Every structure is written in C-alpha cells, then in structure tokens.
C-alpha cells in the first residue's frame, strides 16, 4: 500500500489567525478519504494545500512524490498528477464542453488532436454526457456542468483527485447525478480526497474519514466513526448534519 499523499505536522496562518495546527494524515493509493467539519475548520484549506493552491508555513506535505514545501517544486508536474474539482465548477464559458476537456491534454500534455478527441469522448462517456459535447457551459444544468468539470480533470489522467465541496452549490435534486459519478470513480480505483457535507455519501464510499475542528485533525478513522463518534465535537457535528 503506497502512500500517495503524506502530510506531517502542517501549520498555516493567515496573518495572526491560525488556520491549521499540526495536521497529519496519510492517503494510500486507491483510498477514498472524506474530510468533514464545520465551516472555518480548515478542511478546504488543507485540501487546497495538496495541489499548492495554498502554501503552508511549516510541516511537510508530499503528494505523488512531489515535496510541496520545497522551493524547487515543479508545479506543472504536480498539477498533472493531482486533479481538482471546485464548488463553482469554473468551466471556461467561451469554450464548448469538448473544448473545455481537450484544452489541457492538448496544450499541457502535447497530445495530438486525435488523441485528445479520444480522451474527451472516453471521459464524457464515463460521466454520461457524450451527447453534450458541443454545448456551451451556460446551456447545461449545474449537475451537468459539475460532471463536465469532473471529466475535465479526469482527462489529465491524474493519480489523485481532489473534490472541494462539489455538490454544495447544486440544487438537491442535482447532487445525485454528481455523487453517482464520484461513486463510479471510487469503484474504479481512483484515489480521491473529498471535502464534503454529504454524510450519507461519506458513510457509503469513504475508506477513511477525517474530522477537522478548529484547524486540527480532531478525529479520524474508517467511516464507522460517523456512526460511533468518540469525541463530543464530532457527536455534535454528526447530529447537526442529519
């Protein structure tokens, strides 16, 4: 079991405010890890540290062999190994779905037009949106846009995928289609780290759950901890999320 993501004693502050205190955990290949917690607990921050969207003040983060706190880290290479899906989709509005997906493989990985087209069709098939190839993002529903965003990250063939509260901006009846795509990805063996409020999904799919509170890893374990929380704070959190 190789660790794809290794985090040790990570600290981060914004000015005088401490966001992360000594965060340490590990994600193995093929694992699905759900990071949960209240807003302000640092869960989104720690996720964004994993692909260097945020920097850390002290500690170590190693992702897919890249040492993130080293000044010589190759960001481009890192981002080819780590994909991310955002809460607000962030699709490129001036490009069609197919162009959104094929852009990065073509220009960052130098794939030929034919190769890129094949990759695009494959990932669109996986998220069940092949027929929307030539549509523009504004013509799609929120759930469809998020699935395209997932496809866009998948097209880069990453080793790890990060999901930053990807269903929080969706109407409730649209979250199902996105969650089922994510479940398929998990079953296919993708290493996934998700910040989420979807407790049922975490229970069902996560191999490891990390509960963050006030910038610390408060409690962690298998998804069983959601059923039998050990700490008072997690008990409160799970109770409030029901």
């Amino acid at each position, binding site marked *: 079991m190789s660790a794809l993501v290794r985090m040790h004693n990570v600290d981060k502050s914004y000015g005088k405010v401490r966001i992360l205190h000594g965060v340490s955990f590990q994600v193995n290949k093929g694992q699905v890890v759900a990071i949960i917690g209240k807003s302000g607990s640092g869960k989104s921050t720690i996720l964004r540290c994993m*692909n260097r*969207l945020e920097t850390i003040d002290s500690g170590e983060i190693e992702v897919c062999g890249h040492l993130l706190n080293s000044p010589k880290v190759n*960001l*481009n*290479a890192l*981002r*080819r190994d*780590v*994909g*991310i899906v*955002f809460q*607000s989709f*962030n*699709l*490129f*509005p*001036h*490009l*069609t779905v197919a162009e959104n997906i094929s*852009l*990065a493989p073509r*220009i*960052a*990985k130098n794939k030929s037009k034919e190769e890129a087209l094949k990759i695009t069709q494959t990932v669109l098939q996986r998220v069940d949106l092949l027929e929307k190839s030539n549509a*523009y993002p*504004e*013509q799609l529903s929120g759930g469809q846009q998020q699935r395209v*965003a997932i496809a*866009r*990250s998948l097209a*880069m063939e990453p080793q790890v995928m990060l999901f930053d509260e990807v269903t929080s901006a969706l109407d409730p009846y649209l979250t199902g289609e996105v969650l089922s795509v994510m479940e398929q990805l998990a079953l296919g063996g993708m290493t996934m780290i998700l910040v989420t409020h979807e407790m049922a999904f975490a229970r069902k799919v996560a191999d490891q759950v990390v509960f963050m509170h006030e910038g610390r890893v408060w409690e962690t374990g298998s998804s069983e901890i959601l059923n039998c929380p050990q700490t008072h704070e997690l008990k409160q959190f799970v109770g409030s999320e029901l």
Partner: protein
Amino acid sequence: MTYKFEFADVIVRLPLFLDGVWLTCQLAVIATLLGFIIGTLCAIGRRGSNVGLARACGFYVEITRNTPLLVQMLIVYFGLASIGLKIPAYLAAIAALVINVGAYTCEIMRAGMDSIHPGQIEAAECLALTRAQVYWHVILRPAAERVYPALTSQFVLLMLASSIASQISVEELTAVANRVQSETYRSFETYAIAALMYLFLSYVMRLGFWIFGQMVFTRRRKVGTPM
C-alpha cells in the same frame, strides 16, 4: 446670405478625396493592429507581479491619456527630428497614433481581464497550464469578447483622430480637403463631403468589426448571450 452652394468643383476632385480616404484607412488599420497588441501587452504588464514594469506601464498610460494627440504628433515628428531622429511624416503619424490608442486599449483590456472570474484562472492553473497558456486560452479571448464594444468604439475614434495627421503634412482625407478648399474656395462643400466620407468610413469600420466579432467569438454567434 450671398453664398451659393456649388458642388461641381469639388466633385470633379473626387479622386483626390479617394486618395485621402485610402491613406486614412491605412493609418487606421495599421494603428489599430499595432495599438491593440501594445495595449494588450501593457495591460498584461500592469497586472503582472513585476512592480517596476507595472509602474512603467502605468506612467505610460497616464501621460498619454492626459496629453493631446496633436502635441504627441508634434513631439514625435518635429521633436525627434530636432535631436537627429528624422522620421517620415507617415511613420511619425502611425507611431503617435499607436502610442495614443495603446494607452486607451490598455485600460479597456485591463478592465476586461480583471472581470475574468479568478476561479477560472485557478482551474486553468490546476490543469497544468503555464502562466502564458492561461493568459492566451482563458483570459485574453473572453476578456476581448467582453470589452469588444468598447474596443470597437475606441478604434473608430482612432480613425477619426487620424485627421490630426494632416497637421504634420500627411496627405490623408483632411489634408486633401484643406488642399481642395484652398484651390476651389468652396469651403463648406469641401468639408461637408469630407465629413460624409468620414461618416461612411465609421459605418464601414463598425460593420467590419461586427463581422470580425461574429467570426472570432463563436460562442456568441452560437448561443447569442453576452459574455
């Protein structure tokens, strides 16, 4: 009023007018292309992390936008000649026009680029695109589409402003009108015809820009909504 309108003398000189129109078009097209490139580079410079470059671009924009084009042309043509840099009037006019429209384009493009949602830039960077690739594929085209009406108006104004080149003896439309006027003494008719020609040119320019926009901004053509 004892003045009688007589267009005959002026109409006979129409070929001269058309020569002037041709030169005006040259000035407008060349200055538009070069000015857009310089303005866009300047906007990128102003947004960059190099403080010295950002400030230099800022100075360029402020100085150019707060001084008249006529003075800028006089400096480029007469001023530089006096220190040994003799430039032909045609090139001096283009240089002054490019410097002038570059400053305005910089501000327009900067507004367009600033309006791109930072989330998209983040997403592009997370797809392993380099800074240059992000600018080209994710920032510049949507920014240009958003500010396209403002750019169009700016370049039409540029074409009209090329009339000032007549003051450094470039034989564009206004200079031709001056010459015809001095030969025929039909001042009102001459300048009225010149005005109508400029009006026609401005419509043609707007049409041209519209067609170009429809070709380049495929999303707008297919979906129809503004950016």
